[in-house]
């Protein structure tokens, strides 16, 4: 501890504030430093402001306020080339390596950008020596498109080394890596730190941060909410800093939900022997199930096992080659989405902008267009005053944080978009709801809120079919879980769920 405070930071950011043109304050008065030879983990949920902070430090985003000190000297970094010249390197989440260039050409380009004039032959020699010194194995003649994500990251790290960068910042570097690649990356970071580099490691995974970092800085909502020495930190204190106090015990929120007895209730969605074929390949193979009134049925499975095709077929965007879909007893197999929505179906797609919402338009437009197509009392001529009233009601339903109905829908955060979508879909009092990954990409607290909304609506009689990659979510809120693997149903489970047997059938 004492040794750390006596050292001088190699990089220090003071009072960084970044407000994006859409009014989102991504960083608010953030202080942050990195010492020589240490690994700092920047930990936080999506949207916490981690990427913005490192991008501001690297001159990619211009902060509205704040100062950056490098090796004790105040510096004004107005673009990324200047950051490179100073010795600050940022490896972004998807590394920028040109697909059509060789590794040596790509590295040479970056060196030139940083003002280091080298010939291609020298680059190859330099790369070879870097490979020896730090064990950064990259082949200089390989073309960019042939590199795996892990290899591209190594190329980026090699560039940082050749530039003799003092600070290397990595934005969620393990996201696209296999477990083996990830652990070899962490090893390399430790090696780099031991040679005196300052490493900034952005992650949203607590375990990873605890494993690799010397110090952990936690961000939430654009602010630093905690700073810990990795040696003596607990998982709970990190969770609390990430999500705010009191948010940890949400697990089990829904345990006390009464079990729904079925059989007596009529099925709202009834799927019978559904087959979907794409380009000659069967994606969904003879799926049969039903969802009853007031019931939440979860579809579990590893992504890419036919769930998306099933979702599209159920809402009417895809025609099955065989089988039958009934909604409220009506055979809708050959009907389009419009007819299904009119039968009382609400749809919550996984993509918010572009599928659930129309980008570039106002919140009230997004409420109006989806409600006007069905029995909502909005006629051919749209009464915008009425839309305003409905919009206020919709916003109030799930407490969407938005300035008003005229605000562009793009200015909402992911969580608020999802609140808006769910509120709009529930506003039409649907008989059944089909949702896909309803909490994907949302922070924990918002996810819990979304789940509460779903449980509440099911209590009022709506039937839910929830296709989700998040098994934990399904275990929490479902009455029944069906597992999909390679296009077929591999089992049906009822509460109380047995995690192991569900997980086993997912891998089937």
């Amino acid at each position: 501890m004492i040794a750390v405070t006596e050292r001088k930071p190699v990089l220090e950011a003071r009072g960084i504030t970044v407000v994006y043109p859409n009014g989102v304050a991504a960083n608010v008065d953030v202080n942050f430093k990195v010492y020589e030879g240490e690994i700092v983990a920047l930990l936080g949920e999506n949207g916490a402001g981690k990427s913005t902070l490192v991008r501001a430090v690297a001159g990619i985003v211009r902060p509205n306020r704040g100062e950056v000190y490098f090796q004790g000297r105040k510096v004004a970094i107005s673009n990324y080339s200047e950051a490179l010249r100073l010795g600050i390197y940022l490896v972004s989440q998807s590394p920028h390596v040109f697909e059509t260039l060789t590794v040596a050409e790509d590295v040479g380009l970056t060196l030139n950008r940083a003002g280091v004039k080298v010939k291609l032959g020298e680059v190859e020699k330099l790369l070879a020596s870097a490979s020896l010194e730090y064990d950064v194995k990259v082949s200089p003649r390989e073309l960019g498109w042939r590199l795996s994500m892990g290899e591209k990251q190594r190329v980026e790290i090699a560039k940082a080394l050749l530039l003799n960068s003092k600070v290397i910042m990595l934005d969620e570097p393990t996201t696209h890596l296999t477990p083996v690649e990830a652990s070899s990356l962490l090893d390399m970071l430790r090696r780099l730190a031991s040679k005196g580099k300052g490493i900034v490691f952005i992650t949203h995974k607590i375990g990873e941060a605890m494993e690799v970092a010397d110090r952990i800085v936690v961000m939430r909502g654009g602010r630093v909410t905690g700073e810990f020495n990795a040696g003596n930190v607990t998982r709970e204190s990190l969770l609390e800093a990430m999500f705010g106090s009191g948010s940890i015990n949400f697990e089990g929120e829904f345990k006390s939900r009464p079990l729904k007895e079925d059989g007596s209730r009529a099925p709202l969605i009834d799927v019978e022997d559904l087959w979907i074929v794409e380009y000659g390949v069967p994606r969904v193979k003879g799926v049969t199930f039903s969802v009853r009134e007031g019931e939440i049925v979860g579809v579990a499975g590893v992504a890419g096992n036919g769930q998306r095709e099933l979702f599209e077929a159920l809402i009417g965007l895809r025609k099955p080659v065989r089988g039958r879909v009934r909604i409220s007893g009506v055979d809708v197999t050959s009907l389009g989405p419009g007819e299904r929505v009119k039968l009382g179906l609400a749809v919550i797609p996984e993509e918010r902008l572009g599928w659930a919402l129309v980008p570039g338009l106002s919140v009230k437009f997004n409420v109006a267009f989806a409600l006007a197509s069905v029995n909502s009392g909005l006629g051919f001529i749209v009464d915008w005053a009425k839309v305003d009233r409905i919009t206020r009601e919709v916003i109030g339903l799930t407490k969407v944080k938005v300035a008003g109905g005229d605000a562009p829908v793009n200015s909402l955060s992911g969580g608020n978009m999802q609140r808006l979508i769910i509120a709009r879909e529930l506003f039409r009092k649907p008989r059944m709801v089909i949702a896909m990954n309803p909490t994907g990409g949302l922070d924990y607290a918002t996810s819990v809120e979304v789940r509460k909304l779903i449980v509440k609506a099911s209590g009022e009689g709506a039937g839910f079919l929830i296709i989700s990659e998040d098994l934990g979510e399904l275990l929490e809120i479902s009455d029944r879980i069906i597992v999909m693997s390679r296009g077929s149903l591999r089992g049906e489970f009822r509460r109380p769920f047995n995690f192991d047997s569900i997980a086993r059938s997912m891998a089937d």
Partner: protein
Amino acid sequence: MLLLEERGGVSRLMVILGAVTGVLIGFSLAVLLTLIAGVSLAGALNALAYTYASGPAIASILALSGPIACSAIGLTVAYRARLITIASEGQVIAGAIAALWLLAYSGLKMGPLEGFMAPLLLSGLLGATIGFLVALLKVKLHVNEILSSLMINYIILVVANYIIGGPFREGPFAITRSVPHEYRVSYIIIPAVTGLITLLLWFLMSRTKLGLAVEAYGKAPRAAETYGYNPSRIIFSVALISGFTAGIGGALMILGFQYSMSPMSVFPGYGYMGVLVAWLSANNPLAAFAASLFISSIAVYGRLLQASGVPLGYVLGAQALIVLSALTAVTLVKYRVRWL
């Protein structure tokens, strides 16, 4: 690397001021170009002053704006639904021929009101029929509408040339009969008609369910379909609407200033100008109305320059400079330029 960064929070007034500034700079550049072409400063300024401050020139601007505006306003609707048709050119020509037939060849005697309304309706319907064809090809056979509408334009061009030089020929030259004087309309009627169409389509787009559907489908087709709008129906609607208005443009051309037709090789391409105007106005019908007056004024300015002895190449250059500097100014108002 050159970067354009959106400024955000730029008011509409700023954009309009930017456009006006750009136009003024453009005119200065145009004057400079005509000086290089060998016209005296007095002559160059005179052409400019005459365009915007003389009765005959203003009458021409209003008249010419008719077919341009009719194409453009309809296209704003089609483009909002991402139906990138350019059939407006053929629709204007077809509409003109239909109106000419009705008034000069059909032998029907009509009163002043029918003599005005009937050609608009007939031309509009013919334009809509062509639009229907484009939509049908797109919906049923998935033919790209840019290609099909371009090809349809060529077909109409050939057919029009045949009609003008064949069945409609009067005398030794390939020129048709003229619209009888009693059916011709004053130049002031033309902006009244296009203004009315503008308001109608503005209302349709901003106050009706069809407007919601078009807007949603253009920006997020999957969202529109998922929440209950039928894509085919949207495509047919906008194709019919834009075809109808462009057809009316052809009738206005015949009733308002052209009166007769000669081979299409000398046709100035009002339908294509409408495509340009629709893009310039960011698919806003109100802006398209204003922009067609602007484009039509530049066309008149070009004719006056040519009349004062400026070679055609310089004239086209001057017109291009004006449009380009207006566009550049708007871009600079909306975006910040950065070097990376």
